[in-house]
């Protein structure tokens, strides 16, 4: 009996191979999309981790020579033997085919874990690391090093441009600095009972950890938003799978009725269909994982890094698919199928034996389920509104996101129906009226695909708005904060004074970094003294400002606060803020301070020196048109150590290139999401086509040509796409707003400004239209070529 039933069920697919293909392909695409987003996330994470590993020595305190460039290796040993857990760094530049490559040498046995690529390599297999002692560099740098150095070069995409990282033994040899070190990295955890630094190594100064964290917090926020994108793509996938399965089941209601009438019990029948679905889900999921693999390999510019991140590739480059990767892809496919099929299977289970086997896709148009759907949608949207006003916390932020998306998706068919009904009312021609009425009739069958399109477009709009806003903010922030070409750390007031005197004729501006921990508005905060000049006036953009802001601050009549302080203390431009041990001044401007956890106020340098005469600036930003020459002069003529000079331009360029990579991939994924939604429409139209003959045949019999009917089908798809797009735009913007202004504030305490990109949205609209037309072409052509005899069969008794 089971075999007979199974062969009957399967015969449906044999008769409708296209439908089988669309179901499996739909599942595969949804899985691939999910995998693709995971890929971007992993890629972004891997890139940032690598960036942190290259740049991350900023997160540790460092010991630098008080004078000159060199720390004798004996000092390192003396420190270790005194209980100071420090890791040696030797640093220098080597000529490599016309370029200068910065070579950094580390010792993986004493360097804090995770710093530099070799700490990982050494932890994994110390002997083979020590046997090979490779040099790590990105592909471009590796090409420059070829033939220049005798050590093997391992390509690591995460390493900053024109930088190579090597074992300390190799670096000392290549730089010809045997026995010399440049600086020492101080581990975070230190043992008990260490003598003070001055008694062990009086020639070294300790430079506190700096930087790093800004970028770190900012990228955390970016990850969070990408995670939200992952959820969105999953929702789109579920809608697509739901549509595919729902329609496939709809068509087999007649067969189920017949099978039951012939004595097949309901339970085993449902079981058979579940098993059948599981097999299809596995097939689709497997295909999807492979597709995702291809997507990852072709989309992500740096295949090696990607594959390492995603698939656990060996360093040698042989490819390995991680079991977890396979399983999560298959899991998504099966879970999505289960969610999507639950409704269809329940429907079959509840169907009375003698119920009409006629497809009811269009018959449900005016039933109570629709009213329930509208009520649910309105409830969810109301809840979203209430959460926006009343809610607090990250979970609430995500709940808000969920309510907004599901509510909008559920409401979509109703909105479209209202719009179409309006069009029907004002339409004058009879064909036009029929067209609108028939489009309305089609809505229930297409609504799932249209919801998928809505979510896909909204996700695209939301995510591209978020990502682009993020990019603008981030680059602006980098320009603002890393405006100086060089940053220099000195170790004494005397050296600082010497530096100021030395640089005065050589730079366009010298900016002392003056700061002190203080309490502002009852909260722990930092007070900064700024030398207000061209750098501040030209590079700093303020979130809000009073007129003539910079002159007032420079004249000591006003101050600036960061967004965190303003939000926490409930202050804004025009309010007064009392400085500890100083005057009370009005706030003339609020600046964005992304990544900084605590409050900050900025006053003019003279005022700062008045309030805190004891604080001297030891770190300086230097503005120069010739940073390289300046750097050389500082090292050679003033005798500053290389480690005390930071080239911010390089950091900036590297940070931006990391972001660019992510943006490229996000854009590509946007196209993919739309393609998947377009596919869903195609599938729905194709499946509906057969069902629609009884609706179209009378219109044909009464005098509309098949060609005209086909044209109308195309126009219908475009109209629906345009209407859906016009719903997706506000939804996408709302989504971006929630991500930037709610989720981000809850997670990190600052709001990312939202920028609008109308051209991008227009482009997206054209893409969506294009996708809809492509999806409708084949069904429309098939309709235009339907033989009259097929149309006539509608009217005949045999049907």
């Amino acid at each position, binding site marked *: 009996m089971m075999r007979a039933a199974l062969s009957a069920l399967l015969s449906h697919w044999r008769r409708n191979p296209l439908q089988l293909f669309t179901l499996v392909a739909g599942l595969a695409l949804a899985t691939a999309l999910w995998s693709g987003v995971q890929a971007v996330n992993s890629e972004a994470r891997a890139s940032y981790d690598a960036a942190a590993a290259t740049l991350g020595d900023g997160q540790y305190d460092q010991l630098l020579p008080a004078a000159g460039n060199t720390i004798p290796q004996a000092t390192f040993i003396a420190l270790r033997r005194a209980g100071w857990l420090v890791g040696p760094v030797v640093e220098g530049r080597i000529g490599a085919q016309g370029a200068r490559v910065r070579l950094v040498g580390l010792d993986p046995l004493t360097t804090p874990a995770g710093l530099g690529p070799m700490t990982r390599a050494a932890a994994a297999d110390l002997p083979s690391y020590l046997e090979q002692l490779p040099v790590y560099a990105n592909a471009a740098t590796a090409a420059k090093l070829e033939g220049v150095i005798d050590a093997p070069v391992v390509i690591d995409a995460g390493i900053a441009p024109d930088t190579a990282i090597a074992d300390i033994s190799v670096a000392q040899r290549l730089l010809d600095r045997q026995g010399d070190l440049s600086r020492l990295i101080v581990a975070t955890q230190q043992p008990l009972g260490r003598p003070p630094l001055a008694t062990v190594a009086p020639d070294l100064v300790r430079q506190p950890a700096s930087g790093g964290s800004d970028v770190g917090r900012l990228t955390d926020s970016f990850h969070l938003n990408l995670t939200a994108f992952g959820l969105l793509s999953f929702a789109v996938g579920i809608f697509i799978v739901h549509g595919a399965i729902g329609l496939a089941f709809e068509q087999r209601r007649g067969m189920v009725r017949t099978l039951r009438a012939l004595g097949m019990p309901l339970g085993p029948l449902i079981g058979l269909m579940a098993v059948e679905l599981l097999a299809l889900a596995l097939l689709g999921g497997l295909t999807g994982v492979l597709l995702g693999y291809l997507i990852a390999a072709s989309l992500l510019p740096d295949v090696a890094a990607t594959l390492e991140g995603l698939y656990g590739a060996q360093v040698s480059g042989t490819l390995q698919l991680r079991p977890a990767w396979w399983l999560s892809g298959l899991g998504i496919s099966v879970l999505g199928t289960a969610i999507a099929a639950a409704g269809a299977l329940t429907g079959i289970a509840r169907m009375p034996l003698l119920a009409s086997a006629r497809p009811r896709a269009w018959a449900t148009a005016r039933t109570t389920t629709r009213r329930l759907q509208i009520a649910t949608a309105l409830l969810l949207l109301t809840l979203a509104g209430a959460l926006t006003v009343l809610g607090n916390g990250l979970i609430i932020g995500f709940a808000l996101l969920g309510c907004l998306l599901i509510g909008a998706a559920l409401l979509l068919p109703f909105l479209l129906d209202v719009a179409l009904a309006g069009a029907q009312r004002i339409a004058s021609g009879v064909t036009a009226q029929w067209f609108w009425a028939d489009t309305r009739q089609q809505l229930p069958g297409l609504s799932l695909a249209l919801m998928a399109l809505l979510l896909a477009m909204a996700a695209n709009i939301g995510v591209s708005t978020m990502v682009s806003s993020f990019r603008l903010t981030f680059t602006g922030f980098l320009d603002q904060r890393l405006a100086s070409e060089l940053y220099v750390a000195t170790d004494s007031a005397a050296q600082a004074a010497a530096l100021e005197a030395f640089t005065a004729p050589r730079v366009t501006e010298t900016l002392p970094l003056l700061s002190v921990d203080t309490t502002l508005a009852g909260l722990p905060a930092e007070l900064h003294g700024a030398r207000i000049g061209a750098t501040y006036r030209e590079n700093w953009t303020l979130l809000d400002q009073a007129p003539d802001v910079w002159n007032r601050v420079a004249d000591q009549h006003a101050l600036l606060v960061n967004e965190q302080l303003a939000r926490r203390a409930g202050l804004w431009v025009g309010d007064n803020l009392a400085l500890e041990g100083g005057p009370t001044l009005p706030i003339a401007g609020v600046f964005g301070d992304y990544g900084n956890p605590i409050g900050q106020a900025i006053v003019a340098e003279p005022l700062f020196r008045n309030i805190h005469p004891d604080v001297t600036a030891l770190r300086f930003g230097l503005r120069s048109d010739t940073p390289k020459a300046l750097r050389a002069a500082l090292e050679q003529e003033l005798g500053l150590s290389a480690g005390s000079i930071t080239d911010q331009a390089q950091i900036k360029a590297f940070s931006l290139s990391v972001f660019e990579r992510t943006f490229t991939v996000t854009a590509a994924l946007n196209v993919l999401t739309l393609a998947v939604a377009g596919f869903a429409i195609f599938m729905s139209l194709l499946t509906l086509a057969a069902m629609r003959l009884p609706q179209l045949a*009378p219109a044909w019999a009464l*005098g509309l040509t098949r060609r005209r009917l086909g044209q109308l089908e195309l126009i219908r798809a475009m109209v629906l796409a345009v209407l859906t797009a016009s719903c997706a735009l506000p939804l996408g913007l709302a989504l971006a707003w929630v991500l930037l202004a709610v989720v981000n504030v809850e997670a990190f305490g600052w709001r990312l400004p939202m920028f609008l990109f109308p051209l991008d949205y227009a482009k997206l609209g054209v893409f969506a239209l294009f996708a809809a037309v492509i999806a409708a072409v084949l069904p429309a052509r098939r309709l235009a070529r339907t033989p009259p005899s097929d149309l006539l069969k509608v009217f005949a*008794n045999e049907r």
Partner: protein
Amino acid sequence: MLLSVHALTKSYAGADGPVPVLRGVDLTLAPGETLALTGESGSGKSTLLHLVGGLDTADSGEILLDGQNMMRLDDKGRAALRRSAVGIVFQQFNLIPSLDVAANIAFQARLAGRYDAQAADRLARALGLGAQLDKYPEQLSGGQQQRVAIARALAARPKLILADEPTGNLDEATAGEVLDQMLALVAETGAALMMVTHSRALAARMQRQLHLRQGTLA
């Protein structure tokens, strides 16, 4: 003559080559005349009706409808002729499910460009559909659906009504009622009627009866 059919043949593709359905049919129909086409299943009576209505194309022969040679018309021309000269009532699925009853009745007349709201309203009332005008086809009984189809066919004031077992899906009492109304209204509008039926009783109510047997008129 409103309709003149000469030496009409039609065959369909079968497993062992073409299967002839019509093997040279001749018939004429005068304006206002009513004609019953009877015959066994497969005798070709529905095919003949479809060919006359321009719903399908013949292999050879001649169909002159309202002075136009059907055989020379393309898809578009046949659609135009269907719109303007012919009203069709099928056994089932006559109606456009997305339109309400009033719109369904008006549909063909408006396509043909001779919609008369008053006349349509009168027709609907005459067929007892006055209370159903804003309902949708799926909310109607089978008899009501067929009445709507008849009203729609007549509303366009065609010269020829083609009906294919119009009451075949209805119970006997309803069928009689619907047929009475149809014949009365056809007579009133002066249209000719060609009806396919296998019921002798129905056929007897037409002015003329033709019996098809294996693709030829007996």
